[in-house]
């Protein structure tokens, strides 16, 4: 298979297991985001793909060939580090030309390629500047151009946008995704920012505790999370307890849910429901009754916090569908069956 395949990769540092039995295949030309809280093993996994760390177990295959024993400098990959790691003693053009110089590319060809890359990152005429005289976003682009100078087979980025301010980060996410689609290069980005992952990735790989919890498309991850960790980590959600009543029917917060079933053999489960899928109505009837405790009006969206027998539930609505409620008012919360995702606890 063309592309990158990780087979049963594990990494232990002493008695600590950073990555445990990871299996993924990344088809050629796809954009993968490794997402997870800090310490979940995503960076270690990326470093093993780059050859900077050696896996304790397992194999890494690139286009069918086992690259596990191949040292970093022979793997033909481009990597952007969190610190960017631009060489302080070289100017912009020399930084970008560094991999070309190492490979012994002729001087004229080096110059041509550097001009091409400077154009690609919209920094024409910046070649002679020292890297210390660039802004954060410009440095970011230089690091990307340098990593792509040799048209590598794999493009790896370790928290590449974390040093930028929010506005610039959003712009760079779009730019990075467009660049990747234009070049058709297999790309793996490590990030802890789920918005970043949703913006850029074909496939989001959610990791926690050194294990992959779910690998799927962004929409799939959002709509059908595999477990409570993924549901909670991606976006915001309401995690409610579901249990069986005396007649064996599924109930949530005391209300029977006719359209939902507990997983077979389990008396309890969790239900994840996104705040935008909740409806607020008058109390009584089929709705779950609660009290409004707080309203956060953000202009674009309105978040209503409702207390249902000690459990806090959030509902999000747009200004057009603004719920006519105020703090302290009794309301009914409707959970549409199709929006509820039943998860094992």
């Amino acid at each position, binding site marked *: 298979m063309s592309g990158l395949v990780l087979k049963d990769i594990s990494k232990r540092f002493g008695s600590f297991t950073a990555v445990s039995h990871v299996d993924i295949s990344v088809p050629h030309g796809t954009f993968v985001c490794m997402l997870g809280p800090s310490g979940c093993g995503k960076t270690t996994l990326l470093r093993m793909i780059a050859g900077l760390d050696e896996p304790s177990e397992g194999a890494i295959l690139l286009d069918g060939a086992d690259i596990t024993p191949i040292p970093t400098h022979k793997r033909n990959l481009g990597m952007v*580090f969190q610190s960017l790691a631009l060489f302080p003693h070289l100017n912009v053009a020399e930084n970008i030309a560094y991999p070309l110089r190492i490979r012994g590319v002729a001087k004229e060809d080096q110059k041509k390629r550097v001009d091409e890359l400077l154009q690609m990152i919209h920094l024409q005429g910046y070649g002679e500047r020292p890297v210390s005289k660039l802004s954060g976003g410009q440095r970011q682009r230089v690091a990307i151009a340098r990593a792509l100078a040799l048209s590598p087979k794999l493009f790896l980025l370790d928290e590449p946008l974390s040093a930028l301010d929010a506005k610039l980060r959003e712009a760079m996410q779009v730019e990075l995704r467009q660049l990747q689609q234009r070049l058709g290069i297999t790309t793996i980005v490590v990030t802890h920012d789920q918005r970043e992952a949703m913006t850029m990735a074909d496939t989001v790989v959610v990791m926690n505790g050194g294990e992959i919890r779910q690998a799927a498309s962004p929409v799939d991850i959002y709509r059908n999370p595999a477990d409570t960790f993924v549901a909670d980590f991606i976006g915001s959600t309401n995690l409610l307890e579901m249990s069986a009543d005396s007649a064996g029917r599924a109930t949530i917060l005391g209300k029977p849910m006719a359209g939902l079933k507990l997983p077979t053999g389990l008396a309890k489960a969790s239900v994840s429901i996104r705040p935008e899928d909740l409806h607020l109505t008058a109390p009584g009837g089929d709705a779950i009754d609660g009290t409004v405790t707080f309203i956060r009006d953000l202009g674009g969206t309105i978040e209503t916090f409702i207390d249902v027998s000690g459990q806090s539930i959030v509902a999000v609505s747009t200004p057009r569908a603004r719920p006519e409620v105020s703090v302290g008012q009794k309301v009914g919360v409707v959970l549409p069956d199709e929006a509820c995702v039943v998860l094992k606890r």
Partner: protein
Amino acid sequence: MKREPPRTLADYGPLFFPATMLTVFFVVPFGTMIAVSFFQRQQGGFYTPAFVWSNYERFLSVFFGNVLGFSLMLAITVAICCVVLALPFTYCLTRMSRRAQVLWLVGLLSVLSLSEVIIGFAWSTLFSRTAGITNLLVAIGIMDAPRALYPGFGAVLTGMVYQAFPYTVLVLFPALVRLDPTLTEAARTLGSSPLRAFFNVVVPALRNTIVATLIMVFIFALGSYLLPQILGRPQHWTLSVLITDQAIYQSNMPFAAAMAVFLVLVTLALVSLTLFIGRKGEVA
């Protein structure tokens, strides 16, 4: 952080102590030395105030020229050897575990506690025919017969490098610790072997530190006058040895002072030249 420039006399307060120390223990003795270098020597060990150039004229001979040349060459060689040995060593040291680093640094610091005399005699024993390291080589069958490795240039160089090595490591250590380890990793992902990455990323990124260290070891080695006498032959004696000889054994203070002034001037000229070249390289 931007600081206000000092305005009142009290703002300069913290400078008084170092300024006084520098005046009393450096400016005044150095001024005295310059003055003495122009005095007239009296046979019998003393000198009378005068203004004569004869002390400097005597120095301008082939013999002293050679000694000066040898001293500079020895100091430069020691500086280069120290940096060439200490840079990879310190680089590896910064990548070791905390515990290993502490052990190595304590060991190096203990070398600093040894006096020049002890270092000199220890090496003269190690290099001797009767008790030296060649006996070990004979024992394991590499050499046929034990041999004296001193006096000689190699022995002087070894002793001085041994003495200056801990200083070199201690000066390089902070800069190497601060060096971003992802720089070499980035170089590796860009196709550089680890060895190549060391030479075209670590060394250039540390250029200013390396130049500063070279100058420090050079000046340190220039002042050495015991090791060349213990481990070398008379042709390996440095200008510092001759200055000591003139000042203490020949009682010719004016001539010794003239040589010392000359040595300081040549050193300053060399250091400025190095810095000037370094500055130019930075602009390019």
